[in-house]
C-alpha cells in the first residue's frame, strides 16, 4: 500500500463565525500505481485533501502514511521527495525567470540535497531534451528559453514532465487542466494519462469535468462536505455514467455538468 490516509480531519478557523469543516474523517488507501480521480462540488474539500497530503495544510487529526511512514508532521519541502504536484494555475508550477532546462534541472533534484556541482551538463541536457520531446510541442529546441515565454498549456505540460521526472511515490493534480483552453486541456490530459499509467505513478487527480472523471483513472472518489461519499473501484467506475453521478448525489452544480 503506497498511500494511506486515516481519519484525516481539518477545520479552518475553529471557534469563529467563519468556522469551516474542510475534511471530515477521511479514510482511504491507494495501491501502488493506482490512478484515482476525485470529483465533488465546490467547497467539498478536494483541494484541502491534496494540500494536506502535500503538507501545505496541516491536518488537525488523523494520519497520512506514505510507504507506511507517517509524513503528517513533515513540512512541504521534506515531503517533496515523495510527492510531486501540478497546480491549477499554470503560473504556479514553474519558475518563469528560469529557462526550460533549468526548471527541469530543479525538478530532477526534487527533494534531494543540492551541491556545488553545475546544475546543467551535457548528459542531463540530453536527458531533458529526450523527455521534453515526448510532448511533441517542439520545446526540445527551446531548452534555454525562459519559461516566461511559454503558453499556459505548454507550461502545464512542462510541469507534468517535471512532476514525473523523478518518479514520485504520489502525484497530486488539482484541476490542472481547468485553466487551459479545451484543445490544450485535452492534450495535457492525454499526456497525464500516458505518463501516469506508463510509469505506474500513484496519482490523485481532481477534476471538475465528469466526462474526464469517467474516462480517466482506475478509481473514482466523490467528495461531499469534507468526506468521501463514493469510492468506486475500476469495475464499478466503468459502469457509471454522468447521469448516475448527478442523479445519485443530487449534485446540481452547473460547473460540474458542463466541465
Amino acid at each position, binding site marked *: 500500500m503506497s498511500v494511506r490516509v486515516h481519519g484525516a480531519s481539518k477545520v479552518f478557523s475553529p471557534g469563529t463565525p467563519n468556522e469551516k469543516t474542510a475534511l471530515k474523517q477521511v479514510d482511504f488507501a491507494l495501491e501502488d500505481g493506482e490512478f484515482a480521480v476525485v470529483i465533488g462540488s465546490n467547497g467539498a474539500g478536494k483541494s484541502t485533501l491534496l494540500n494536506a497530503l502535500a503538507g501545505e495544510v496541516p491536518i488537525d487529526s488523523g494520519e497520512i502514511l506514505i510507504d507506511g511512514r507517517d509524513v503528517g508532521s513533515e513540512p512541504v*519541502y521534506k515531503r517533496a521527495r515523495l510527492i510531486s504536484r501540478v497546480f491549477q494555475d499554470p503560473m504556479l508550477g514553474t519558475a518563469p525567470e528560469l529557462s526550460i532546462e533549468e526548471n527541469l534541472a530543479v525538478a530532477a533534484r526534487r527533494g534531494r540535497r543540492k*551541491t556545488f556541482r553545475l546544475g546543467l551538463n551535457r548528459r542531463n541536457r540530453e536527458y531533458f531534451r529526450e523527455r521534453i520531446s515526448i510532448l511533441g510541442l517542439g520545446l526540445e529546441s527551446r531548452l534555454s528559453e525562459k519559461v516566461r515565454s511559454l503558453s499556459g498549456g505548454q507550461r502545464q505540460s512542462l510541469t507534468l514532465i517535471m512532476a514525473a521526472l523523478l518518479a514520485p511515490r504520489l502525484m497530486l493534480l488539482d484541476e490542472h487542466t481547468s485553466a487551459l483552453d479545451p484543445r490544450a486541456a485535452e492534450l495535457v490530459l492525454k499526456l497525464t494519462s500516458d505518463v501516469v499509467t506508463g510509469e505506474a505513478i500513484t496519482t490523485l487527480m481532481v477534476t471538475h469535468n465528469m466526462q474526464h472523471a469517467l474516462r480517466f483513472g482506475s478509481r473514482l472518489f466523490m467528495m461531499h462536505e469534507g468526506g468521501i461519499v463514493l469510492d468506486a473501484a475500476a469495475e464499478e467506475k466503468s459502469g457509471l455514467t454522468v447521469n448516475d453521478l448527478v442523479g445519485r448525489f443530487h449534485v446540481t452544480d452547473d460547473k460540474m455538468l458542463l466541465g
Partner: protein
Amino acid sequence: MDFLDIYLNLFTVSLVQGAIFAFPALAVMIPFRMLGLPDLTSEGAFPFGAAIAATFTVAGFGPVLSLSAAVLFGFVVGAATALIHLYLRVPSLLAGIIVLTMLFSINIRVMGKPNTALFDNDSIFTLALDADGGEPLTQFALILALVLVFLAVFYWFLNTELGMALRCVGANQAMSRAQGIPTHYYIVAGIAMAGGFSAFGGAVMAQHQAYADVNMGVGVLIVGLAATILGETLVGRSTLIRQLVAPVVGSLAYFQVVAVALALGLKPSDLKLLTGLFVLTTLSIPIVLQARLPVRTGSRSRR
C-alpha cells in the same frame, strides 16, 4: 571649454567611484531582482564593511584579511535582516531599516569613534600598485578586476545546483517548496550574500580614501538602485549575465553622469535630489504609460 576641463578632471576619479559602487549596486540588485524581496540592508552594510575593514587594518591584519573580514561580517548583517524578516514576520523593508539603524551605533562601537583614518596603513592599493596608492586609472583597473572576479564566482555559483535553487526561490516560492527547496534558508543566504557584496564595497572604499566614517553609507542604496535601473536600461536583463553585469555598467555610467552634472556647475549636494528624481522617473514610466490607457474604460473610476 570650462566644462570639458572639469569633466576630464573628474573622469578617472568617477571611474574609480563607479567601480567601487558596483558592489553595493550588486547588493541592491540581488534581493530586488533575484529574490523578489526589496531590501535596504546595503545602506548599513556599506559603512559597516568600512568600519570592520578599518578596525582590522588598524589592528594589523593587513588589507586582504581586512577585506575578507568585511565580507564575512557583511554576510552576518544580511542574514540578520533576512532572519528578522522571516522569523519575526517583519516586512523586509522595515527589517532592513531596523538593521541599518542599529548598525550606526555598532559601527561607532567597532571603531571606538565615528571615523578612522588609515593614512599610515597599507591598503590593497599600496600593496598592488605603489606606495602612495597608484593613479586613478590603475586603481580603476584593480577594482574592476575585483568586480569581475566577484561576478565570475557569483555567476558560477548561480549555475550550480544550489544557485539554481536560489534563483528558483526568487522566481516562485510555492513551486520551490513543492520541489523540496527549503526556501527560508535560501532567502537568508541570498540576502547574506548581498550584505557581503555591500560590505566589501564599503571596505574597498575605506581603503581607497584611507578613511572610514559612519556616515559613508548615506545614499548608497539610492545610488545602487539608480545604477541597477540605469544598467538594465543599457544592457537589459534578458539573460543571467546581463542581469549581473547591469549594476556594474549602471554604476560606471551613473558616476559619469554625475561628473557631467558637476562639470555643468551643479553642487555635489544637489546630487541626491537628482538621483532621487531619476529613480522616481524610471519607476514611474510604466505606471504613467499604463494609467493613460485604461483610465476611461477601467473599473478604477467606478470603484
